[in-house]
């Protein structure tokens, strides 16, 4: 179906207050559980504080409110959680673009039944690593990170709200020019509006207190219509200028992305000598493989080819090289491999650069569409 645009908001005053942009996502999740359209919802919630976003699985609609509001210190990945642990359930999942791309690649490999999922996308301008984010707030905002109640990315700024009710904002450009700001992978991420979902929610183009929704699938459309009919959300049609404003914001973000893509994958891409230095650090912990949503082979070829040897790092050809040959065509630039590498090896630059080359040759865009990559051999997995 062609995309449809709506503005929606929760009809529950408490949810409106707790959530972002009218609490629409919170109300949709509650509705999914209350109406028994799903057994569980998987979303992101605060564990200890705003720097500690973790995936939360909820069965009781009453618990959904605890996850209301947005979190940016949540560089999470839910692909594996869905395919490994939630296969037997009907689940409503809230996803960032990288999550939705991971789900798409896993779905193509039949790692879960798409019919079991309601996939609710969120516009995403990027996430922050929790520890550097706290340091950044100390350095550039001159505040105690513990005094921050909320943070948001809006109008090209990272804005914080303090306990005393005041707000402070610093331009993302200024922060990122100095090496702070969003994760590198988020800086070069091409997708801000994940249209490989059932519907996408966000504040771009929306009136204050409302959520702008792009409805992608019939399933998404039925869900919104059912929510309106059940009286949990209300809706209105956005004006043309709001649609254009949203498109303009997306375009600005894409242009910004291109600057970083060139920087990370070309001008500042590691030299061969630098890669050699990185490979010498590898301790064969398999962290990059374990966290990669695309790596799911039942028998890992890398383990077969590499015998644990503590006196030297593994041969990059049989270790990272084999991983590269298995998954790089489907690399979604989620950056989880970089995040978990104990040796700070920027693996995703290599894998994603190859995906981009593969895309140029074959037209295969990882994380989208229904077809597997050309020349993909399921026997390998």
């Amino acid at each position, binding site marked *: 179906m062609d995309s449809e645009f709506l503005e929606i908001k929760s009809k529950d005053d408490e949810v409106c207050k707790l959530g972002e942009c009218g609490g629409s996502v919170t109300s949709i999740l509650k509705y999914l559980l209350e109406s028994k359209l799903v057994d569980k919802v998987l979303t992101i919630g605060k564990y200890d504080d705003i720097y500690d976003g973790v995936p939360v*699985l909820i069965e009781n609609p009453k618990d959904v409110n605890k996850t209301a509001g947005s979190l940016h210190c949540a560089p999470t990945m839910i692909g594996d959680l869905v395919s*490994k642990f939630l296969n037997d359930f009907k689940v409503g999942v809230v996803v960032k673009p990288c999550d939705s791309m991971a789900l798409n690649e896993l779905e193509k490999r039949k790692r879960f039944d798409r019919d079991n999922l309601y996939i609710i996308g969120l516009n995403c301008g990027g996430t922050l690593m*929790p520890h550097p984010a706290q340091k950044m707030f100390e350095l550039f905002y001159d505040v105690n990170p513990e005094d921050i109640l909320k943070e948001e990315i809006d109008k090209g700024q990272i804005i914080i709200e303090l306990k005393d009710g005041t707000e402070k904002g610093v331009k993302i450009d200024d922060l990122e020019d100095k090496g702070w700001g969003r994760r590198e992978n988020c800086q070069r991420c091409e997708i801000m509006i994940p249209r490989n979902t059932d519907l996408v929610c966000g504040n771009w183009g929306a009136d204050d207190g409302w959520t702008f929704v792009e409805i992608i699938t019939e399933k998404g459309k039925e869900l919104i219509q059912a929510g309106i009919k059940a009286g949990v959300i209300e809706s209105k049609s956005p004006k043309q200028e709001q649609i254009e404003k949203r498109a303009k914001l997306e375009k600005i973000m894409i242009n910004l992305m291109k600057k970083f893509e060139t920087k990370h994958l070309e001008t500042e891409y590691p030299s061969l000598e630098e890669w050699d230095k990185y490979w010498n650090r590898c301790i064969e912990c398999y962290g990059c493989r374990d966290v990669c949503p695309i790596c799911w082979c039942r028998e890992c070829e890398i383990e077969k080819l590499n015998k644990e040897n503590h006196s030297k790092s593994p041969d990059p050809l049989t270790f990272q090289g084999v991983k590269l040959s298995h998954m790089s065509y489907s690399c979604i630039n989620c950056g989880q491999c970089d*995040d*978990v590498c104990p040796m700070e090896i920027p693996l995703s630059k290599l894998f994603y650069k190859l995906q981009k080359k593969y895309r140029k040759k074959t037209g295969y865009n990882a994380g989208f569409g229904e077809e597997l990559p050309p020349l993909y051999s399921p026997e390998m997995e």
Partner: protein
Amino acid sequence: MLIKHSICPSCSVGCGINLICIDNEVVGTYPYKKHPINEGKNCSNGKNYYKINKKNSFKTPLKNSGNKLIEFDWDRTVGSISEIISSYHSDEIGIISSGKITNEEATFLKNFAKKKGIRKIGVYSHNFPKISTEKLISNYDELNNAPFLFIIGDIFVKNPLIGRRIAIASDNGSKIFSADYSDTSITSINSDNYFKISSITEFLNNFPKEIENELNKDSVIIFNQLEDKEDFEKIEKISNNNDSKILPVLSDPNSYGTMEYLPTLDKNDLIDLIDGVKVLIIINSDIGDYFGHAEINSKLKKLDEIMFLTESLPEYMSNFDYVLPIPQMSEKSGTLTNTIGKSQSFEKVVRKDESVFSIEKIFNEILKD
């Protein structure tokens, strides 16, 4: 499915780790990116710890009967141990612990020994003393920008999340020198200068000038092994000469904390303790690994009674008279103090099996008699 914060029990660095739990069972790990020490990065030891412990876990005490360990119920096991302890003089009883217990459990053990008059008690420290030096770094971040790091041991492999800091320092322009027994190691490959040594003690006795000349107030000496308890003092003296700092990397998640409560035992102290008692209680301490199983078995054979309290079944058990399961780290709450003296509390992630006695309960039952 629940994701819960915990502390990695595989070494003394104190990394955070998220555990994925389903139906009261740990089924996987998830990056704990907010944790200031490791920011979501874990080594394979940390990620696999729960798998190995699950594989070797047991719920029922075992008793040696005709050189075979057979299941024995809790009440009779604890009753028998109480009788054994009551029938020996306190000087004939020894307790060996490790850094794989919490501070709260270590406090409890200390008090238990005091009440029972047991003086032969301690924690095997791999030749490290109780850490009470002002030279210790206060935060791992100090490593990131140190201009010079000197390393003894293969930190990259044994303590990868310290190795990470060394890699960051190297990227920031730090000069890295290291020393170890092996011809090559991942730490040596990542060093600007490597010293292959045959003895740490001898190396420290004749400490190379070219290393000493590089050390200053911003540099750090990192070491995860010592041959002799006096080696620590030698390193401290070297660091005093140039005002550099030190980072001793202990072996267990609470080695630092346990040594605050219980006396430290080096290899000779441990042998003396075993030789001087008739009854030995070993708590979560893999003493076979300290000396080699053959050597330790010949020593243990001379004892009248050996009770072993452990999270998971050891490979060598033939000499033990009783083997008692104790709750795993994921099944209890408490505090652990990492190798730079920072205490972190952790919460129970899964409920322990109701039947399994905690360390406190086992010793409280013994105290009743």
